[in-house]
């Protein structure tokens, strides 16, 4: 066996092992890894997530038995102290000696601590390892108990801002102290860093620029930082994150060539001045540079692995430092040469202080080549721009369209991902090309997106390339004629409409019957609720009948909220309620300590009910004449109304009365998605009826009927279906419309999207439900008739059958409530405690 020893068990050292063992010929080599840290290699890029609740195990690059499974010997907590290059041996701090044929230095870097007086005081930390983080966490907890609130981070670069977020996650107010006149001076120009600064300051993070720290104040522990000019910043903790210095001690003691400012010098084979010793990652000085990004480190790991195996791969001459990330929630990206300014180059800058967006692209004067750029506040264009830059692709006639979008049109200026050359690197973390992604589908190696991810590792690094990979996989599937059908999920190769017919024709009443006869597997969170909803739409079963396949909200007949408690919404048809009933709601809320809020659907939502309290809450409500409001169901929610001509001097008709009638007619009917209605008594439209799935507006001579509107993420006004019709006609058309929608829409597709996708659009819909062109109206009406009037309150059913009540208990083996639920004050009420 040829012996390879890897010194350092960070991300790059791990990546070296991972790449090495997959290569041909690697079985003749024995890899031994030494790491001075006590644990397996972990993801340092996402270190700040440790504060946000991730465990060291979550951050780990590999599973516990990965090294064993791959015959790699891992020695943690063992430091290499010396190399004997003559005898080709290394020496560890445990006084052990090991022989090597090839040595790979992947020792990485340490935090650079500027020589400031008092930097050794208690409460000053660096931000580099999980142990550093543990120490910071423990100290923050201690000083917080003593009432401390302020903490500083030294360094306004990438790492410094990451550390500031971490400090904030610990509940302290961070102050970022930077020597340079702007944040991220290496990646951003003035305009971009000003924008970043204003966005970060808006989050109550102090930014102190142009600050030269004279000394750290305090007796034993830090109490402040003294800047030049007698300017004191009072803080009780300091995290130094001012840069990195390569861990090149081993190179130095063993006489390898090192750079003036540190780093073990390597050639383009990643060889040091000793041909049997390689250096990769942040310890390697390549082209007079240390590269502090993961992608170049991974590439170095690959080159070193190939070289040791006797192959020819060389490191690229110029290394791309493009990067896209989220800093304290602000999107930041830079690519190519972000600063370039000369006679041949023009910078196009878009700055929007209102939305906090800054974009800059550097384009050659002839408008043909993209050389680099910066994005702050919105980096959604990054993938497209990076591809254009790195593949030197042609620019649109107006290059500014790249960052402004082609104004006036919908079409994307980036073109489709399929237009990229096969050599285009889509995932730069794992160096995966478009060709590799598409081929894996077209040559039959992979079938699905997850196959591709498993095979190529694309998207497994930073994940920024995911949208492009998804597009490419879809396009590649299509190119080989693989039908990309809108089937429900892996268990059913049918659309919802096909499944609806299958259930109806075969009269199925049980989910597993359907999946056994027409699908495969055990179902999932997508198809089970779809089938349950179809059962309900066909047989008007309440949610109690299909508990196993109902989503949580339907299973517990209430809406799950942020902390796992539920909200309760009794029906208040048309928003009309008596004072007595209002008092009952108030009494229930008081008795069970619930937060109350008036909803957009003119009813009262009671939040914070424990699972176990739901039956008792509903018993009281039902005894006082309430019924379920189906706020949890994919069904009719409410029909909103204005007060109407009973009181309003403008009213043309009894809108409230009609709203109540419609709500009672359609309540409880299950649909592909929720349905909302509205009725206004005049064109002033106080009920916002045109923002609903169906809306009525009283006009001279009858009602105008509008359909397929909604609020939500993509607001859409309802469109006019029929004018000046009487109430009976309204109900006839609505019966047909709703039933046609229930029959044919996809899962979780609301009426507006359904109409958008309907072939022939509104005109066709009018033909079907007004002129009965396809002879469906009678069936639609009779199906609706079988649903209307068979309504049963689901909560009443539960309370009548103790068997159904069993599910409303948090524990199977205890009557206790979930003790994990905590509240904090919110104005005069309460809210779940954020954690």
């Amino acid at each position, binding site marked *: 066996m040829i012996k390879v020893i890897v010194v350092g068990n960070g991300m790059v050292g791990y990546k070296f092992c991972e790449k090495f063992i997959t290569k041909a010929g690697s079985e003749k080599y024995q890899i031994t890894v030494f790491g001075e840290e006590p644990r397996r290699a972990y993801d340092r890029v996402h270190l700040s997530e440790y504060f946000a*609740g*991730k465990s060291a195990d979550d951050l780990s690059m590999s599973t516990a038995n990965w090294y064993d499974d791959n015959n790699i010997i891992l020695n943690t907590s063992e430091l290499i102290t010396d190399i004997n290059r003559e005898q080709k041996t290394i020496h560890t701090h445990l006084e052990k000696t090991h022989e090597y044929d090839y040595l790979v230095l992947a020792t990485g870097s340490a935090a650079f601590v500027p020589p400031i007086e008092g930097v050794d005081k208690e409460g000053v930390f660096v931000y580099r390892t999980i142990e550093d983080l543990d120490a910071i966490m423990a100290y923050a907890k201690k000083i917080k108990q003593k009432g401390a609130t302020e903490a500083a981070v030294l360094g306004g670069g990438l790492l410094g801002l990451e550390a500031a977020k971490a400090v904030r996650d610990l509940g302290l107010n961070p102050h970022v102290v930077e020597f340079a006149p702007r944040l991220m001076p290496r990646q951003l120009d003035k305009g971009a860093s000003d924008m970043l600064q204003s966005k970060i300051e808006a989050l109550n993070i102090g930014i102190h620029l142009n600050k030269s720290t004279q000394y750290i104040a305090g007796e034993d522990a830090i109490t402040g930082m003294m800047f030049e000019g007698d300017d004191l910043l009072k803080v009780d903790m300091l995290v130094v994150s001012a840069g990195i210095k390569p861990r090149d001690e081993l190179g130095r003691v063993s006489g390898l060539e090192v750079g003036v400012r540190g780093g073990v010098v390597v050639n383009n084979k990643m060889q040091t001045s000793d041909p049997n010793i390689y250096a990769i990652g942040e310890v390697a000085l390549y082209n007079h540079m240390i590269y502090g990004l993961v992608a170049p480190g991974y590439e170095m790991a690959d080159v070193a692995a190939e070289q040791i195996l006797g192959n020819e791969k060389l490191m690229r001459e110029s290394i791309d430092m493009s990067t896209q990330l989220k800093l304290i929630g602000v999107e930041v990206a830079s690519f190519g040469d972000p600063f370039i300014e000369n006679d041949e180059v023009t910078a196009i800058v878009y700055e929007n202080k209102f939305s906090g967006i800054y974009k800059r692209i550097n384009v050659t004067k002839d408008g043909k080549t993209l050389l680099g750029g910066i994005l702050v506040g919105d980096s959604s264009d990054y993938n497209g721009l990076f591809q254009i830059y790195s593949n030197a692709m042609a620019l649109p006639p107006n290059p500014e369209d790249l960052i402004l979008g082609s104004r006036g049109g919908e079409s994307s200026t980036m073109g489709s991902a399929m237009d990229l050359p096969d050599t285009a690197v889509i995932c730069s973390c794992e160096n995966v090309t478009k060709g590799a992604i598409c081929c894996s589908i077209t040559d039959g190696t992979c079938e699905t997106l997850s196959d591709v991810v498993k095979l190529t590792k694309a998207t497994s690094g930073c994940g920024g390339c995911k949208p492009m990979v998804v597009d490419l996989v879809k396009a590649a599937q299509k190119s080989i004629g693989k039908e990309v059908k809108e089937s429900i999920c892996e268990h059913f190769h049918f659309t919802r409409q096909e499944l609806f017919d299958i259930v109806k024709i075969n009269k199925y009443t049980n989910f597993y019957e359907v999946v056994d006869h027409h699908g495969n597997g055990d179902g999932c969170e997508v198809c089970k609720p779809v089938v349950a909803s179809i059962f309900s739409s066909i047989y008007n079963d309440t949610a109690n009948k299909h508990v196993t396949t109902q989503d949580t909200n339907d299973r*517990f007949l209430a809406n799950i909220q942020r902390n796992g408690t539920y909200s309760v919404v009794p029906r208040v048809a048309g928003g009309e309620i008596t004072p007595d009933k209002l008092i009952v709601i108030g009494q229930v809320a008081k008795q069970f300590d619930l937060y109350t809020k008036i909803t957009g659907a003119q009813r009262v939502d009671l939040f914070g009910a424990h699972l176990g309290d739901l039956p008792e809450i509903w018993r009281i409500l039902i005894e006082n004449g309430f019924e379920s409001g189906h706020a949890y169901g994919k069904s009719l929610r409410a029909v909103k109304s204005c007060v109407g001509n009973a009181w309003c001097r403008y009213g043309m008709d009894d809108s409230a009365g009609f709203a109540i009638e419609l709500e009672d007619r359609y309540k409880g009917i299950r649909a592909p998605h929720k349905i909302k209605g509205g009725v206004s008594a005049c064109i002033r439209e106080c009920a916002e009826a045109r923002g609903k799935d169906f809306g009525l507006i009283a006009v001279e001579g009858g009602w105008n009927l509008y359909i397929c509107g909604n609020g939500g993420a993509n607001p859409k006004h309802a469109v006019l279906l029929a004018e000046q019709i009487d109430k009976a006609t309204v109900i006839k058309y609505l019966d047909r419309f709703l039933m046609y929608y229930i029959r044919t829409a996809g899962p979780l597709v609301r009426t507006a999207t359904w109409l958008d996708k309907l072939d022939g659009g509104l005109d066709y819909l009018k033909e079907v439900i007004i002129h009965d062109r396809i002879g469906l109206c009678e069936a639609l009406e009779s199906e609706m008739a079988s649903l209307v009037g068979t309504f049963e309150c689901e909560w009443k059913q539960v309370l009548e059958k103790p068997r159904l009540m069993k599910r409303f208990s948090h524990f*199977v083996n205890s009557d206790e409530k*979930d003790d994990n639920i905590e509240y904090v004050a919110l104005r005069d009420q309460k809210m779940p405690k954020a954690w």
Partner: protein
Amino acid sequence: MENIINEYTSVAVEDVKIWFKAGTLKDFPSNRGGCIKYKNKQIAVFNFERRNEWYACQNACPHKMEMVLSRGMTGSADGVPKIACPMHKKTFSLVDGSNLNGEDYSIATYPVKVVDGEVFVGFLE
């Protein structure tokens, strides 16, 4: 609350020191979950009747740390039995707790055995 996640580590059946009696067969609904309390742990137990299999995992969703996984929906992905969190539909393998949506967080799983109609969950301590 930071400590919730540290409470839960997967237990392999061969390492079980304590088989805790969680209840009897009738306590656990078929093809759904029930939550049990063991010391300071909340464990979701699934009677996957359709597969004639039982599984158990932490009740806390690792995404938002809410005690809700037992109320999620069971299913399978490529034949692997899974649970979908009711909060944001993150899905996890019931066999090894891995995240099936490609995100980083996963859940701890525990062995279950059924003897004479009684359901036991295995713990280290």
